[in-house]
């Protein structure tokens, strides 16, 4: 029982990170139609933004976090200008390969900047443990789950209760009409990229203390976020959350109850199964433009 509680907490914490990565991916997809294959590198950059401010520059925690997120916001803006704008009128296939290509560049740039040696990013609650029903749980895992829940709540408020969020959704639904209504579509699209980069940055900062910060961490995260998105339903925010938690739990529980070598096959197997049987995912989205 104690083991199970421990595994569930770790799985939910990892799942929260995947969920945030998937949300960033989905927000961009719904607003811009871009399937961002560099999404995993966004998370990696988030972790390394933390490495840059907290480890290399040695800033104190709150300042370091703020600095890292500011870097990520800047990165989102840059990505919008350098990658999204030139590609925005291209067919889906071109955009997919374009973001794959830029993901390679980002990973390599991180390698050149930080080297291949992994870093350790400390948590604000480093080393603290909680004891629940005989199970010892790292406080960081609990904090990650709580912080993710809070973030999702804030995101919901932003998208549903503020003029900015409603304008973003209007652009996502129909950019041309939104423009005719006088919305500043380009600024809103840029903000969408910034938001996605910030979410990925937070995911990266939370992941840092759970894994070692390694420049190659982007690809595995991207694959899990994709699997989460497909399982939950492409384009659906609740789907991204449910999918992320499922993939995280499947990874942690699968590693200890099924096989640690094949743990990742559970998530990918589920993803392929969903693609075959129910491509709209659990939270079925409109699917008329599946291509």
């Amino acid at each position, binding site marked *: 029982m104690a083991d199970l509680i421990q595994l569930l907490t770790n799985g939910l914490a990892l799942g929260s990170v995947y969920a945030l990565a998937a949300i960033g991916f989905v927000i961009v997809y719904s607003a811009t139609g871009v399937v961002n294959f560099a999404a995993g590198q966004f998370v990696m950059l988030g972790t390394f933004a933390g490495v840059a401010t907290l480890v290399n520059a040695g800033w104190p925690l709150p300042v370091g976090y703020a600095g890292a997120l500011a870097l990520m916001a800047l990165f989102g803006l840059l990505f919008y200008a350098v990658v999204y704008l030139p590609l925005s009128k291209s067919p889906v296939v071109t955009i*997919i390969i374009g973001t794959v*290509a830029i993901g*390679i*560049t980002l990973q390599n740039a991180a390698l050149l900047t930080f080297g291949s040696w992994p870093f350790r990013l400390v948590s604000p609650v480093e080393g603290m443990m909680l004891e629940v029903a005989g199970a010892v749980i790292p406080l960081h895992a609990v904090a990650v789950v709580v912080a993710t829940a809070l973030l999702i709540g804030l995101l919901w408020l932003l998208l549903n209760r503020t003029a900015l969020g409603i304008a973003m959704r209007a652009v996502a639904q129909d950019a041309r009409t939104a423009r005719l209504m006088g919305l500043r579509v380009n600024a809103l699209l840029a903000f969408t990229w910034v938001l996605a980069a910030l979410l990925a940055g937070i995911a990266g900062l939370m992941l840092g203390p759970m894994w070692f910060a390694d420049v190659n961490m982007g690809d595995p995260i991207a694959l899990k976020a994709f699997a989460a998105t497909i399982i939950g339903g492409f384009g659906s925010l609740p789907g991204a959350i449910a999918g992320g938690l499922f993939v995280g739990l499947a990874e942690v529980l699968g590693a200890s109850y099924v096989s640690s070598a094949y743990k990742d096959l559970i998530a990918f197997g589920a993803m*392929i199964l969903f693609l075959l049987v129910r491509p709209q995912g659990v939270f079925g989205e409109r699917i008329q433009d*599946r291509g």
Partner: protein
Amino acid sequence: MRSVLVLAALLLAGLALSFVVSEYTLRLLNMAVIAAVAVVGLNFAFGYAGLISLGHSAFVGLGAYGLAILTTKAGWSPWLAAIPAVAGTGLAAAALGYPLLRLKGHYLALATLGLNVSFGIVAANWIELTGGTNGIAQIPGLTLAGHRIEGERTFLWFGLAVLAVLGLAALAIHASRLGRAMMAVRDDETAAAMTGIDVTGVSVAAFVLSALYAAVAGCLFAVHVHFVSPDDFNVAHAITFLSMLIVGGEGSVAGAIVGAALLTFLPEWLRVLGEGYLAFFGLMMLAILVFLPTGIVGLARRWRRPVRPAASAPGGARPGVQP
């Protein structure tokens, strides 16, 4: 006819090079030829039928592992082992294709990506069969009429011959009813279905053809390097194959070969960049996608017929799904 001449010119250039270049360059040329076989195959799926596959190197891997296992564990001759290796890969592609190819665009990209990752996980962990991450070593080389196809130069001649046969076959398919059906499916699925084309059947045919070529490339790889491991067939390689096709110009056999050769040699030419090569590579791909969407072949075509928009040139249209 012109495509046949271009193909012949490319192959003859390879043959001429085989007499003048160093042993090291010969090895790179061999790598380029093997990649070219795989990319000419990918051209069926991506260039003609517009199916975006991020799982191509899994099929290369299936062919390579098939041959490696049959030669080292069962003691078959590589010639004999290549037949079930290639045929089995084709069957696997057909079995996967029927359910998967109902998907389009990024759904198909993600599904094939998942397949390639899954292939890597199985290859790395099914140790009894695949040797795990240590791979399979000591794969025997080929012998032809008592002569061993060994040494980089001899292998290059053999590789060019294989590429010639497969390239000609690809051109024949391009000009055939099946090839035109694939391109019709790529350009407009609904319209293609309206004219009586079996969209799923044609897509699966393109997918299977691409897998067969991939498996041949895998077999060539296995008998050339004499060693296979999961890392040789990971997603990065699948992305490289796709990049080769895009750089060269999709929808064109010559483009596939040019792209494969160029991206095999590019890291060597850009050695000055050292570890920064990949950063440059990604930016270069992005620039090609934005400024040169029809690749090198498209550029040559535009230069020859500047009046005609590149999009209406045969095979020049980017296989996009209409929004």
